[in-house]
């Protein structure tokens, strides 16, 4: 199943099997995307919207908040398995996202375990830049049908 084909956000557990994959792309990201997320999330760290501040801190310019592309991964995960079926979500930031970046969001069902009547899918997820470098590596578990 591919999440990009899912029209409706799942309200109940979906059927998933080992090897099923998620694939989506976002971007190119703009400074406006960073500012929109700043307003939505309340993250006004100046490294993400103030070029003068970012350059003074030794950076080439502003970069995206980690929680922006983590949130994008989160909604794609939610669209894949259903937002209320997610039990755990764990992310590690491994790189930064810059204006102009195009991101690939991927996921794979590593295994499905059954305990009693509950089936839980263990998922491996990632967000990568157009260069192929991962900016997030993540895992999640979700209750599935």
């Amino acid at each position, binding site marked *: 199943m591919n999440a990009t084909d899912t029209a*409706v*956000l799942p*309200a*109940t557990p979906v059927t998933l099997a080992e090897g099923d994959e998620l694939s989506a792309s*976002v971007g190119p990201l703009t400074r406006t*995307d960073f500012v*929109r*997320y700043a*307003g*939505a*999330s*309340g*993250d*006004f*760290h*100046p*490294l993400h919207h103030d070029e003068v*501040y970012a350059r003074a*801190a030794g950076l080439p310019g502003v970069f995206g*908040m*980690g*929680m*922006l592309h*983590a*949130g*994008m991964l*989160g*909604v794609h*995960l*939610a*669209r894949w398995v259903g*937002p*209320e079926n*997610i*039990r*755990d*979500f*764990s*992310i*590690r*930031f491994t790189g930064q996202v810059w204006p102009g970046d195009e991101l690939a969001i991927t996921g794979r069902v590593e295994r499905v375990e059954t305990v009693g009547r509950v089936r839980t899918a263990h998922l491996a997820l990632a967000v990568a830049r157009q260069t192929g470098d991962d900016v997030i590596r993540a895992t999640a578990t979700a209750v599935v049908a």
Partner: protein
Amino acid sequence: MIDQSIVGKEIPPISFPIDRSKLAELSKSFGDGDPVWWDPAAARAAGFEGVPTPPTVTVLINHWRDGGVTGLMESIGADLARVLHGEATWEFLIPVRCGDELTARQFVADVSQRQGKRGGAMTLVKIDTEYTNQRGELAVRRTDTLIEREV
């Protein structure tokens, strides 16, 4: 510079609403304009009991803490320009829905030093947060790791 003495420090608790306008802004900022994320009628039509929220919805706390994200970093003595977000982990126990009121209790769980890949020292700060809803149910447990790079 972050100091080991902050381990165990409790950050003052904050209560904050999961409200419709902010949910619409948040989902749109992620590039997902489906009204199911903010409209009760659309959510009901999709089969939800209430308006569901994205996994990272607890970021909305930043609107209610003095100074937002930067206020949190300052409260633990971190140098804003040298702090990065390293890791985040959520455990979801009860669904968070539009109309909920969450109360966050946060404390500094750990401070450790490590050598960075390029040789510089780094300080890692682990912050644990428990989000309880208006019914007193523990809804979400979250752990964040912040990294302060040495100059």
